[in-house]
């Protein structure tokens, strides 16, 4: 695409944005801080539980299943193999005594205790072992019950945490969505000419959804993962700090890999987001122009353009896969390396009897747990990036200063619109391309005024300025002597009804479209409005009449009928000023005459401004302003202008 217009292309943002983004995001959580804190507390509890589970296993092994080395005592009576494990049996208990005596050659004695090598236990009858180790068995039972209680509680907490987090995330995003939408609606009209609909829709729906993931999965997981990492580290240090120090030697490599990965993944995520927004735009455009595409048999060409775009998206996706395919295995590899280190050094320690076997097993288990959250964080980084990229785009819009001016302190227009003055107004949409130059005019209450002139002479622009869709670069527009810039914009617009050439009808019934949300219109009023705007015949032929649902964009009624409905909508508004911008272009002269007659009746006390290409439309106006080359060159009634034999006269002549 040639970059030659002020129209679109999304810019990439630099990294300094992140901090500002967080600053902006943080206040959004305000109403939900309590819930968020709840959720975080739950996360901590869950993490502690998660950490406790392997520890319980360790206790079970060390205390009951393979009792610790300390209970083994080197006895003088044996062959001097000081590195053998023994089971210590209390001889003061009768049950034990019987069994020990039966296998006496396997036991050595130490005061009131008897010792037996673990290796020799298998020579005993199973029933006898059960008796000898009934204490350990009871311990295992208790531990198992504790374990069950913990996992039960863990389930409940997990569920609670997910629910709270989802609720919080969804509500924050709901708030953000509404705020963003509100903000977009408040943007100046110029903003919408530069931003395609598809893009803005993506911002309000998909992007807020992405940010929701930031809250629900990322915040929850990051907290969980960070707590888990911290917890594991603490446990590891408690088990054995030397071993911890040695295995952590691998960490710098992990951090390096993670950062490298983060940088790459981030750029790719941005590309993916921009491309998907483009895909959305293309879909929307294609659907909107489908008839033209089909009639001109452009399906193939359009498809190829789409295919290209889609392929770019695919390629970005493949780059992303590559980055992940390198990073993920590397983290796993480093994890395995850590395990190897533990086996090598830890095993040595077990041999040197500075670590218990249970401790080593637990250490291995924790070490393997340690790498999962690390990988998780990196994996979640992708969602985070996605979310931050979305947040950035949203922020860009929210931060866009192109807003329509908000309500000012001025009380607005308390009374009816009496007169309108344009004082030396100049305007251009694009700097350097003048559309209006020093236009001055005065319209009185009750007048019907028409703007005529060649295409591009600035007629519609005058309307755009009156409704404050745009602001003039110089000069003033006064309503009742008050500069409209000092008037509340909504207050001004509420006194105006605008009917455009391509009226936009909303999905909903015809009634909804006409009454437009105001409920003080009675059925009788509505009936009168329908007749006046010549909508009667079109409504009568619809099976459900005025309660017929209009399809998207009002496709089920013709262009002319849509203009009639929009005229009815303008009548229903009961405005002081009615602006008809080519409002009858799709309507035949006869119907137009009827509408104008009705208009004249309805508007008898009010002001109307008509922009028309068809001179017949303008003829009945009280005054006609002729625009040419950005200026008003003639004005007067039809008769006066014809007599002047100027530009207006020539416009008529030229027809022949």
């Amino acid at each position: 695409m040639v970059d030659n217009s002020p129209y679109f292309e999304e810019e990439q943002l630099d990294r300094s944005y992140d901090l500002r983004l967080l600053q902006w995001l943080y206040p959004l959580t305000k109403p939900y801080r309590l819930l968020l804190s709840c959720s975080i507390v739950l996360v901590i509890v869950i993490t502690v539980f998660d950490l406790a589970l392997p520890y319980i296993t360790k206790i079970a092994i060390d205390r009951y299943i393979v009792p610790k080395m300390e209970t083994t005592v080197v006895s003088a009576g044996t062959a001097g193999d000081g590195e053998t494990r023994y089971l210590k049996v209390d001889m003061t208990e009768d049950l034990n005594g019987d069994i020990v005596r039966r296998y006496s050659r396997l036991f050595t004695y130490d005061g009131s205790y008897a010792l037996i090598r673990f290796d020799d236990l298998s020579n005993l009858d199973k029933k006898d072992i059960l008796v000898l180790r009934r204490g350990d068995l009871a311990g295992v039972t208790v531990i198992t019950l504790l374990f069950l209680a913990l996992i039960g509680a863990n389930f409940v907490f997990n569920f609670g945490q997910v629910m709270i987090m989802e609720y919080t995330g969804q509500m924050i995003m709901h708030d953000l969505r509404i705020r963003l939408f509100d903000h977009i609606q408040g943007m100046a009209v110029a903003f919408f000419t530069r931003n395609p609909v598809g893009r803005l829709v993506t911002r309000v729906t998909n992007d807020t959804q992405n940010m929701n993931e930031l809250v629900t999965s990322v915040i929850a997981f990051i907290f969980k993962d960070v707590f888990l990492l911290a917890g594991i580290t603490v446990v590891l240090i408690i088990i054995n700090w030397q071993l911890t120090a040695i295995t952590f030697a691998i960490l710098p490599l992990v951090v390096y890999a993670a950062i490298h990965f983060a940088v790459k993944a981030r750029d790719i995520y941005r590309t993916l987001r921009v491309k998907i927004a483009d895909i959305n735009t293309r879909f929307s455009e294609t659907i909107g122009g489908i008839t033209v595409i089909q009639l001109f048999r452009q399906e193939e060409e359009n498809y190829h353009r789409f295919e290209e775009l889609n392929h770019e998206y695919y390629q970005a996706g493949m780059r992303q896969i590559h980055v992940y395919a390198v990073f993920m295995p590397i983290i796993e590899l480093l994890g395995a390396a850590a395990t190897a280190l533990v086996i090598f050094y830890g095993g040595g320690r077990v041999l040197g009897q500075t670590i218990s076997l249970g401790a080593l097993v637990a250490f291995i288990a924790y070490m393997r747990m340690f790498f999962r959250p690390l990988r998780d964080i990196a994996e979640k980084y992708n969602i985070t990036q996605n979310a931050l990229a979305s947040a950035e785009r949203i922020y860009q819009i929210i931060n866009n200063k192109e807003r329509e001016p908000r309500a000012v302190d001025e009380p607005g227009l308390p009374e009816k619109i009496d007169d309108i003055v344009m004082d030396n107004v100049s305007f251009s949409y694009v700097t350097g391309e003048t559309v209006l130059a020093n236009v001055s005019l005065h319209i009185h209450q009750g007048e019907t005024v028409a703007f005529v002139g060649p295409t591009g002479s600035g007629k519609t622009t005058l309307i755009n300025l009156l409704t404050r869709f745009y602001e003039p670069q110089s000069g003033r527009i006064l309503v009742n002597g008050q500069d409209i810039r000092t008037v509340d914009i909504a207050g001004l617009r509420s006194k105006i009804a605008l009917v455009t050439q391509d009226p936009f009808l909303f999905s909903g019934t015809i009634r909804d479209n006409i009454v437009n949300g105001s409920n003080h219109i009675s059925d009788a009023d509505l009936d009168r409005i329908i007749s006046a705007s010549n909508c009667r015949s079109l409504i009568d032929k619809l099976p459900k009449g005025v309660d017929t649902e209009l399809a998207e964009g009002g496709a089920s009624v013709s262009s002319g009928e849509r203009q009639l409905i929009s005229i009815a909508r303008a009548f229903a508004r009961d405005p002081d000023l009615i602006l008809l911008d080519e409002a009858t272009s799709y309507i035949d002269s006869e119907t137009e005459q009827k509408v104008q007659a009705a208009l004249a009746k309805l508007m008898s006390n009010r002001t109307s401004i008509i922009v028309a290409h068809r001179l017949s439309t303008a003829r009945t106006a009280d005054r006609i302003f002729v625009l040419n080359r950005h200026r008003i060159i003639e004005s007067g009634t039809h008769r006066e202008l014809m007599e002047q034999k100027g530009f207006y006269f020539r416009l008529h002549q030229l027809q022949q």
Partner: protein
Amino acid sequence: MKSLQLIKPYLLENRGVILSGILCLTIVDILQLFIPRIIKWAVDDLTTLHIDVTGLLGYASYIISIAVAMALFRYVWRRCLIGTSRRVEEGLRNQLFRHIQTLSAPYFDRVKTGELMAHATNDIQHVRMASGMGMVALTDAVVLGVAAIGFMAYINTTLTLFVLIPMPLIVFSTRFFTRKMHRLYQDVQASFAGMTEVVREAIAGIRTIKAYTREQNETARLESASRDYVNRNLGLVRITGSFFPMMMLFSNISLAIILYLGGRQTITATISTGDFVAFISYLGILTWPMMAMGWVVNLIQRGTASLDRINRILETRREIDDPPGVLVQDSAGGDLDFHDVSFSYDPASPPVLDGITLSIKQGETLGIVGPPGSGKTALLRLIPRVYDVSGGMILLGGVDIRRMNLRDLRSRIAFVPQEPFLFAGSIRDNITFGNSDITDEELNRAINDAQISETVASFPHGTETIVGEKGVILSGGQKQRIALARAIVQQKPLIIFDDPVSQVDSETGGALIRSMKSLEGSPTTIIVSHRLSAVQTADMIIVLDGGHIVESGTHETLMKTGGYYARTFRLQALEEYPHGR
């Protein structure tokens, strides 16, 4: 399940890649199982203290070498399997796009743009996730699960059976939950699509909203749509949020069983300590497939729900299509006949056109006038089969147009719709549609004929000016004339203008009418216009009212009849031709 046929071709096409991916994944999974084995040996040796430092170093280096091999295979399966899912995504989206383009106008009257857009992005992404990570996790779960169970059974069969006690629970609850999830996902997606549509409509109609200070209404509409979406999500999370922890619970129950029974067996010296530890490790491996089952099921549910929705679109037959059987090839002439044609957009409503019979000879001009809603545009749309007649028939060169190849039919017609639609590209692209057969000379002639040359010349980039979405930088009249140039440049034997001068001033309109009359190759021309000067010289003029032809004839005969045409003509002549003719 039928919708799975949709992604089958992609899977078949990439079967080599997928198989190598699965192979690598399986290798990784199996290698992964060796690590607990090595740990077990090391622990066993340490329990009985039958090992020295060299032995430990040996074990450590086994682990490292296995890990390196795993890393390599992991890279390969990621590229192969996840890569394929991207391929599926791309293909599906292309397919959807291509299909949507073939659907006919009645479909778009029913379906909302925002919803279609949601299918193109969200749904397809879900399918990708399901066919990528979903498949990987499934393979992973099956391979790891089977292998871990195998190893465990090898160590101790009874204990293994005990460990598997929660399995039926997992299967049962998965079935129960997934059924719910499927429906809930559909709800969430539907709600999302609905919300998208609310936003789209508001942004598309922003000027009207502003002019009618409807902002608050729109916000309220979004508010309720968004709230619905929030509630649907919460409903879904109630299920997913209990599902995952439940899977974890079940796998932890297995661990508790091992702890209790395995612990007892170790105490009674039925199994070695090393076996016990290895058992716990294997269970750790088994935990992942058990949990993954939940996740996989979730992903796949969501994916198939989305796939169903996409499939529904793809299965939509276009209502207007080539007829079955032998098509009439090139029909002889360009004569156009309407034979008792009736039409309604919707069978429930009264006809828009009724009993229309007329005929135009090749090279002639037909003018159509009439009040709004009289059926003018509908009549025009029937000719290139944007819609099909409800009764009667339309003949082109003596052949029913429904018996002709649709592309052939349309290739003979140039159509200028009432409301021009421009694409976001350049002016040139909008006129030529990138057709390189159109020379600059032809382009310029079309631009001249359409009376838009001055405007184009005033842009710094001329015909290369980007017009923006729907031609936002242009005025209505400018858009209309570009659409005219688009039709003129095609040089088709039949050209249809729907109100071509409605948005331009009289002077330009007059010039346009003159160029329409002197088109190259003197095509058959049909013009609808409210400006009678555009139809005045037509060979035949018809007046439509309420779907019927109420007057027909030439300008002269109609003026004599003194009906609608004559009245309108006088009304316009009064002002536009102040000195008569």
